[in-house]
Structures are given as structure tokens and as C-alpha cells.
């Protein structure tokens, strides 16, 4: 009985705080993405026509680890039972990747482009074996600074 009560409380907490954190995070992501839209990210290695002379280049990276909330974990577990798109984790993965790219951009505010952007994931939690889920993203690329904007 108490097990069920604890479960329901955790679920409600997970849902409430999870939703709150998620919508706040999305608002911040959208706002910052627009602010940094000037820095274009490309997966290309070179720019065919360069409008100005390159002042310098620099390897830049951004990373983030975002935790799963209890509600998402249970919902994903249920979805795993039936199969299909795991809706609960889709937004988590999306947030993590956009956040990592944003942090990469924020580390080089004066850059004109990020070339050869790569996005990698790691898995810190996997070895811990305590079932804590998290999304861990590392984004990296080459920032190019021009003499004239």
C-alpha cells in the first residue's frame, strides 16, 4: 500500500517538475537559438567561397547531461512493453542536442561559422547500474572567425 502511495507521489512530482523544467528549457532554447542564429553551423568541412579573410580558427565544443524524470521513466517503460515511438524521451534527446550546440555557439560568440559540426553521445549512467537515465551530448566543431564581418 505505502509502495503504491510512494509511486504515485514520485510520479506526480516527476510529472509536475519535469513538465515545468521542460517548458522552461524549451523557452530558453528558442530564445538563445534566435540570439545566436547569426553563427551558422554547417557539417561541411570548407566554405567554397569565403567572403572575407579568415582571422583565426578554433576547435570549440559544448556538452550537456540531462536527467530523465520519474514520470518519463515510467512512461518509457510502459511504451517499451508495447513498442513504438518513445514520446517521453524524444523531447529529452531533442533538448539535449540543441542545448549542446547552443553551448558550443556560446563559447565562441564572435565566430562567423561552425564548420564540420559533429554531435556525439556518451553514457555516464550505464556503468552505474542503478537505472538512472540521462542523455549526454557532446557537440564539437571548428569555429571560423573572419577579419571583416
Amino acid at each position, binding site marked *: *500500500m505505502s*509502495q*503504491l502511495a*510512494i*509511486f504515485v507521489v514520485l510520479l506526480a512530482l516527476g*510529472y509536475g517538475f519535469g*513538465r515545468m523544467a521542460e517548458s522552461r528549457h524549451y523557452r530558453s532554447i528558442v530564445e538563445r*537559438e*534566435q540570439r*545566436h*542564429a547569426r553563427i*551558422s*553551423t554547417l557539417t561541411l568541412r570548407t*566554405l*567554397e*567561397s569565403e567572403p572575407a579573410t579568415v582571422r583565426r580558427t578554433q576547435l570549440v565544443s559544448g556538452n550537456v547531461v540531462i536527467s530523465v524524470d*520519474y*514520470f518519463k*521513466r*515510467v*512512461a518509457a*517503460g*510502459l*511504451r*517499451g*512493453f*508495447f513498442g513504438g*515511438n518513445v*514520446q*517521453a524521451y*524524444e*523531447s529529452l*534527446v*531533442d533538448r539535449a542536442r540543441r542545448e549542446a550546440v547552443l553551448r558550443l555557439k556560446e563559447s565562441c560568440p564572435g565566430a562567423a*561559422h561552425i564548420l564540420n559540426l559533429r554531435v556525439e553521445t556518451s553514457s555516464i549512467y550505464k556503468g552505474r547500474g*542503478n*537505472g538512472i537515465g540521462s542523455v549526454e551530448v557532446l557537440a564539437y566543431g571548428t569555429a571560423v572567425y573572419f577579419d571583416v564581418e
Partner: protein
Amino acid sequence: MKLKPGIESLDTDNVNVSHTSPLREFAILLVSAFALLALVYVLLGLLIDRAVDWIDPATEKAVFGQLSSALDDGTPPTNAEASLQDLVNRIQQCLDPGYQVEVDLVAESAPNAFALPGGRMIVTQGLIDQMESENGLAFVLAHELGHFANRDHLRGLGRGVVLAALSSIVLGTDSGLDAVFAPASMAGQARFSRERESDADRVSLGALQCHYQHVSGADAFFRALKTAGYGDESEPAYVHFFASHPDVDSRIASLKRLSREAGYASGRERPLPEALQ
């Protein structure tokens, strides 16, 4: 090559996430999972009932006998134990589970009795202390013999094992889902258990009539439990939903009803055997 604004500049829906309500999805999934689990539980229950009917008492004794004798404390039976065994032997003439049931008395203050696979019955000292007449004690012993005769100890064991295996194979142990299904399967188990308890009560009442030619004192144990405060009415209703035994009042009532329907007589109760007093 001209650089143009990227995807961040568009004010369109995010294509990388689904846009249905997470609560709605969760509710649909939870309900379907419950329905599926209930179905599997009922089917497996039927399967176990069939399997239990197929295992005859001799096989049961051979398989579980070793486990059962491992529980034996090894000490020679005390006078009280011998007297209990004698009572069980007498009732077995009316209610035969197919093998000799051995009784162990344990020094435990909570009034209780158990039927273990392999024909071993455990009776606590607390139970003896609650009893005032032999008839009352005989009813409890006959109730446990009824479990043996109905093979309930095997059914319960089978269901427990199957449910545990099912939940760990299908749901995994780290998904948090076991927390959802544990109370549900507990409620399912409890309902099954209450049915079996009621049936054992019925069988036990028949054995009492057969042995004493009357059923007076059958509800002595429940009345004693009530005075001791075990069937407390202050418990909220949902507790009953998870209880493995029917509540004391309804058991007393159903005993009355059963004996009236079967036309069982009433008569003088015998005192407890001296060794048990």
C-alpha cells in the same frame, strides 16, 4: 555559395518530438498494460490449477517432503505437540488430504497456523493460548487440513512463483513498472486467497460436523481474534481489498450461514486436551 538563415529562424513545429499529450499517452498505456496483465494472470491461474490437479498427493510428498522435513526442529515432540498431532489424526479420518499431515508447534505469540507443501502444518503457541475449547482448535486445524485437501498451498506457491517470474521477465526490475504492478498483483493474489480461505472454512465446518456430530465452537477462533482487536473496524475499506483473508465479521457470518444451510447441529463443546491447557 550563399549562406541563408537556418532552422532556428523558422517558427514551425518541432518535427523531432511528438505533439500528443504525455498524460493521455500514459493513461492509455497504463490501462492496456493492466488489462494485459490481468488476462495473463487469469490464464496462468487456470493453467496452475490444472497442473496442481495433475500432481497427486504422493508426488507432492516426494517432492516437497525434504523441504518440509528440513523445517523440523529435530527435537522430540513435546506433550503438547503429541496432543495436537492426535487431534489432527482424528480429524484426518473425516478430512483426508491423501497423506499424513505432521504438526509442529512454534513458540510465536501471534495466533496463526500455516499449511506448507509436503504435508507440514505449523501452529503457533499464540493460537493455542487463544483457544478455550477443543472444538475451536479443531476448526482451525481442520481449516488447514482443508487447505491441504484443496491443494491450496500448492496453488498459492505456484501463483506466487509465476507472478514473480512474469514480472521480472516482462517488466524488468529497473523500469519502475514493478511498483505499478506489485499492488495490482497483490490485490489479485489477495482476492484469490480470500476465495480459498472461504472454501477451506466450508470444508472445515463439514469435518467438524463429521467428527463431533455438531459444529458448536467453530467460530471460537474468530471471536477470540475480535476480542483481541484483530478485526478492528477502524481500518479503512481499502485495506480489505489487499487483505489475504476475509475479515473476521464476515467469516463468522458466513460460518453461521453455512451451518444453517447444511443443517449442521449444535452441541456441547469439549474442553482442551490437558497438555494444551
